[in-house]
Structures are given as C-alpha cells and as structure tokens.
C-alpha cells in the first residue's frame, strides 16, 4: 500500500510539472519541434542533467532501495534494432499528435476530450505489443484476447 501511495505521489508531482511547463499543450510541443521555442530542449536537458547527478550521488553513497531494500542498480542496455524501429514509430506518433504518454495522461486529467482518442490508441498499441510478445514467448497461450481498445486508467480502483 505504501508503495502505491508513493508511486501515485511521485506521479502527481510529475504530472503537475508536466502541466505547469505547458507540455500538455499540443501547441507548445509543436512550436518546440519546429524549433520556434527552446523551452522544451532546455527543460529536457536540465532534467536529464539533474537526474544524472542525482543518480551519481545515490551510486556513490551505495544507497539501498526504500521499498525493496536491495542495493540500487544502474543498468545500461546495448542498442538493438527494436530501439530504433520502435522509436521511429513513436516519433511519427509524437509528431502527429504532439503528445507523448505523460502529456496524454495530463491532458486526460485536465479534461481534454481529444485525449481520449490518443489514449485509446496508445492503449491499443500497448495491448497489441503485449499480445504479440505473449504469443512469441508462450506458443501454447490461448491467443484470443477479446479486449480491444482499453480506455484510460479508471481512477476508481481502490488499490491494495
């Protein structure tokens, strides 16, 4: 339960800042991608730099995770083909909708009706990926998922 509350709290902070920085707005994203505004790049770079410095600090102090108790890991992945092809698809979607997953969620939270379509599409894309992977890894799986476009997160779930 504490995990879920902590996860929700960090998410809420993330969502407020994504909204407050204007990233929910497709106009703001579009201006950035057309190099008309530098805000997104400056924010993005300062976010990565801060996270990098913070992680370096955790690493030096050999911190353990709060909930799991294990020594923190900092895994890096080698480049595979899927990282490029997947990012290509992602980039097309991002450039067309001018929203990526965090802004899709904050748009929904702000009551932007259009975001329901983007979110439904994203859920369908994720579902398709999960289904394909399940079929690849478990040849004997049932293989007939009947759930199509799963809508955005219901906020009514009570958790554990």
């Amino acid at each position, binding site marked *: 339960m504490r995990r879920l*509350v902590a996860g*929700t709290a*960090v998410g809420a*902070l*993330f*969502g*407020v800042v994504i*909204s*407050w*920085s*204007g990233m929910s*707005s497709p106009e703001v994203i579009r201006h950035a991608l*057309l190099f008309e505004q530098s805000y997104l790049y*400056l*924010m*993005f*770079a300062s976010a990565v730099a801060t*996270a*990098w410095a*913070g*992680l370096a600090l955790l690493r030096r102090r050999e911190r353990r*995770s*709060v*909930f*799991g108790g294990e020594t*923190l890991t*900092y895994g890096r992945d080698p480049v595979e083909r*899927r990282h*490029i092809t*997947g*990012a*290509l698809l*992602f*980039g*097309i979607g*991002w*450039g*067309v909708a*001018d*929203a*990526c*997953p965090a802004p899709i969620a904050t748009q*929904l*939270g702000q009551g932007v009706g*259009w975001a329901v*379509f983007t979110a*439904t*599409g*994203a*859920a*369908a*894309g*994720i579902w398709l*990926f*999960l289904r394909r992977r399940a079929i690849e890894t478990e040849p004997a799986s049932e293989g007939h998922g009947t759930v199509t476009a*799963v809508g*955005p*997160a219901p906020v009514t*779930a009570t*958790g554990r």
Partner: protein
Amino acid sequence: MEHHQLAWYVAGPVLGLCVVAVRLLFNARLGVTGGFSEIVGRLSRGSLRFDWRGWFAIGVLLGGTLFALPAGGPDFHGYGWLTETFTGGGRWVIPFILAGAGALIGYGAKASGGCTSGNGLSGNALVSPASLAATATFFSTAIVVSFLIEAVI
C-alpha cells in the same frame, strides 16, 4: 495560456528529481509507458490490482487534474494543428488521426523500451546506449514529421 509557464530551470530539475526518487524508492526507471502498460496488461486480464507503476501513471493523470482545477479547465483550447486544419465538416477525421498516432506511440514506446520519460529522461540519465539511440531517433523523427506537416498544411 491561463497559467504562466513554469521556468524551465525549475521544471527540468524537478522532473529529474522524480527520476531519482523512483530509483531510490523502487530501484526502477521512471516511465509513463511502463505505467500505461501495467494498466493495460492488468485490465486485459480483468484485474484492477495495479502495481506502483500503474499508480504512478494514474498519479500523472491526477497531476493534470490538480493543475487544471484552480484554472477551471485545461490551459489550451482546441487541439493544435489538427483543429486548425480540420474545421467544420472535416473534424470527424481528428479522432482517427489521434487514435492512429496514439497506437504508434503505444506500440513504438513498448518496442523501443520507453517513451520520452522512460528512455528520454530515465535511460539517458543512466547513459544507456539504447536510450540515447532511441531518444535521438524519436526526437529527429518527430521534428521531421512536424516540418512535413507544416509544409503540407
């Protein structure tokens, strides 16, 4: 915009600290797609028992609500180039375009191991080669697509 945009040098570091917090709390990468994926995966099995990742994504959504409540609504109207280009009787195409773009976003993010947060922020902060390659790819693709759209409309 009803709100002033938070200064980039405040917004960026706070987002970065969220990445650090998720590492310290859960020993995991912060990623919104991971949260979506948890929700979609559980729902498709008829379950609502999301782990912290699912609740993180729900938290991001609630963050949008927290931000919009004082203003009484979202901080923009219409939907960017789509509602400017497709007006009147042409509006019916927008839901299809958004759903198609959404599908590419969802599938592409899963295939490449993360979205703008999972690869872009968390993976790059770890200097993970896969994330650096994915970020360079999706940024340049989105930029090219935006200029293409600009040229056509």
